[in-house]
């Protein structure tokens, strides 16, 4: 690789192209803001350099706030000479209120703290769900953190630790919600705040909570333990509204957009009413989404607990899969049942997981059967789509076939030496 000399940029022609167009431009915003904070201008300078070279100039490092093992993503610039104000340029991850709801009071408080101590850039929000505050150095990181915590905020997760939780808006504004996503997010965060701050797990562990199968928190592939709302028993059907819907949209529409879309074909049309085979309804939400005035989740609500979702590294993408088909999540006791489950999972994984091995990888390695034994959960056919197809089963049980009064041992095999060569035919 050839060396080349890099000079600090005063112009950013490539980035400038990102100032035009109808979508709000982060470049325009930051450029304006750079009048207040020179670091932001230097950030744009280094970014321009990256655009030019198609190359990155950040190096990672480690910086911890006292008492914490994570929460700060520390960076130093390889172009620190050219851009001294961003020589150190760290991000603090801050836990948002569940569901990313803010009073302007709290959000302004955050702005004030951040403006005081840093370059003053916010990302709302990070992909895991954190408030990302960009632009402190090795010193201001601590000052900002102390002030944040003083005001009741807390640092988010990073490293081999529980990560900041995320949830959909849920019961706060959505009629589809089957459990209180915000309350559980808060409960789990607080209950496991130590595991979130002090990396002691084999690797990262993410929760994402969605109030129903629509999964607006996109938990299935982005969290190690999705908690997704569902219900037991019959769906709520308002047949009058069904009738109105059919009148309004026409029968073909209902066939093409509701009946034939049900994954288990469990809706049938009876004149101007519909009949749902509740035993086979898999609570997918589709019919409810389409006919939401007529259909609603059932009344006995709770959540499905899933496990093992993550992105590709090492064994390829893993999708979460069902661990507990239904768990009520209303009372303290319900919450305790869930945390008991989590405790036993973390214990078994903690004892047996490899470094940098996420729970999905761990289960893939040891096998779901072994995992269930390890955490003391009974196998349930709902955990799988189908039983094994391979007949090669490693039974621990020896017997089963013995029939009363039958010979105790195999009959003697012939004593003759095999005289002819055996060939697979």
């Amino acid at each position, binding site marked *: 690789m050839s060396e080349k000399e890099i000079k600090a940029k005063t112009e950013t022609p490539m980035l400038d192209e990102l100032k035009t167009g109808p979508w709000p431009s982060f470049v325009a915003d930051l450029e304006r803001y750079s009048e207040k904070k020179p670091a932001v201008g230097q950030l744009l300078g280094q970014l321009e350099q990256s655009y030019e070279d198609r190359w990155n100039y950040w190096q990672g490092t480690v910086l911890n706030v006292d008492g914490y093992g994570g929460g700060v993503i520390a960076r130093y610039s390889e172009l620190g000479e050219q851009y001294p104000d961003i020589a150190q340029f760290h991000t603090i991850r801050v836990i948002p209120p569940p569901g990313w709801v803010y009073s302007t009071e709290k959000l302004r408080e955050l702005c004030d703290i951040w403006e005081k101590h840093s370059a003053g850039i916010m990302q709302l929000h990070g992909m895991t769900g954190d408030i990302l505050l960009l632009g402190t150095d090795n010193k201001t990181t601590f000052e900002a953190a102390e002030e944040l915590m003083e005001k009741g905020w807390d640092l988010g997760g990073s490293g081999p630790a529980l990560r900041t939780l995320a949830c959909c808006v849920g019961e706060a504004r959505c009629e589809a919600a089957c459990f209180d996503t915000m309350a559980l997010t808060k409960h789990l965060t607080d209950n496991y705040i130590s595991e979130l701050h002090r990396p002691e797990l084999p690797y990262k562990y993410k929760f994402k909570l969605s109030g129903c199968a629509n999964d607006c928190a996109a938990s299935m592939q982005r969290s190690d333990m999705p908690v997704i709302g569902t219900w037991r028993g019959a769906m709520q059907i308002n047949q009058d509204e069904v009738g109105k819907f059919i009148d309004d949209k026409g029968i073909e529409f209902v066939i093409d957009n509701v009946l034939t879309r049900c994954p288990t074909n469990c809706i049938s049309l009876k004149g101007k009413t519909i009949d749902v085979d509740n035993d086979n309804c898999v609570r997918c939400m589709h019919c409810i989404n389409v006919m939401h005035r007529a259909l609603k989740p059932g009344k006995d609500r709770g959540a499905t607990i899933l496990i093992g979702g993550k992105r590709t590294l090492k064994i390829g993408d893993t999708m979460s899969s069902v661990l507990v088909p239904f768990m009520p999540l209303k009372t303290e006791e319900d919450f305790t049942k869930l945390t008991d489950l989590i405790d036993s999972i973390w214990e078994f994984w903690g004892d047996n997981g490899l470094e940098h091995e996420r729970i999905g990888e761990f289960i893939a390695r040891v096998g779901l059967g072994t995992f269930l034994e390890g955490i003391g959960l009974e196998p349930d056919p*709902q955990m799988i789509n189908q039983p*094994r197809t391979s007949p090669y089963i490693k039974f621990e049980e020896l017997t089963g076939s013995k029939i009363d009064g039958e010979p105790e041992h195999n009959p003697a095999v012939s004593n003759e030496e095999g005289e002819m060569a055996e060939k697979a035919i």
Partner: protein
Amino acid sequence: MSVKTKKKMAPRDNGAPDHRPNLHPLMLKNYGKWDYHEKLRPGLLLYVAESGDKLWTVRAGSPRTMSIDTVRKICDLADKYAQGHLRFTSRANVEFSLANEDDIEPLMEEIRSVLGFPIGGTGHSLSNVLHTQGWMHCNLPGTDAAGSVKSIMDQFINEFVTDDKLPARVKISASCCQINCGGQADIAINVQHHHPPVIKPQGVGICELPKVVAICPVAAIRPRQGDDGKTTMEVVDEKCMYCGACHGQCPTMEIRDANTDTLSIWIGGKNSSTRKGPSFMKLAMWGLPNNPPRWPEVGEALQTILDCYKSSAKQYERMGEWIDRIGWKRFFEMTGFPFTKYHIDDSVSARSTFNTSTHVRI
């Protein structure tokens, strides 16, 4: 490639007999020009050609293994009623094709009385069970197949002689070892081993060692120097998954055990691409005793499965499709079969069998 031929030797490489002279005259005449068929009643179909020709086909259950005498009796009936032609189906049933409607009744009568074969196997029936050699001829079997087929078909004769008592066609296979020459089916009965192979000392040396070592899918077999200095083999028990591949390669690797082998039932296999496409069969139950001559425990389990299937499946829903729809949870609930950790796939692609959705039935 040229073939060594000796004097007086019969011609070699004849190939397949020509089907045309073997075809019923109406099949030959209307070849490729059939218009439609009608299910008239169990075991009886009418095929109508574009020409208007009509051909009635009577299907009868056969035990597959037959003496020459029995085969000749079949020929007699074909000569008498079916213009001297007959065929066997891919499930070893016998089919007589008739040019004359009037021959149907007498033929059926004689099939029952002379051959002792039941008539049916068409439509939504439980047709003949595909099976394998068993103790009658193979060198690998852990159980018999012909015998268990006889028992199954005795038990489910009503499902064979009717064509509308089942939601869809039911295909069963019964195999005599885990290799499963009987193939995938809606329901398959298969042998299950419970421990690694035991190496028979007297046999070591008769097989090609490298081949035996090579066949093991999990590299559990390794050569070992015996006490007598001869090279023999050993099996690493922790690795071995009791598959028996080595036994097929070398009879010395005795995988069978009359005391501990069990039978398993696998369900939901399907070859047809009809509707959702083919599927493998999945483990429904293991640990059934290998109990000749009538394997009553297998019969009981089959009865349970078929009863549940009948009561809950929709029309045209093959066994596997039915369970896909109602879910395996309901299947295990309905049948009362235990769901165990052994039902959970533990192969490299196990994850693809997990329920990676929130689809649950509660």
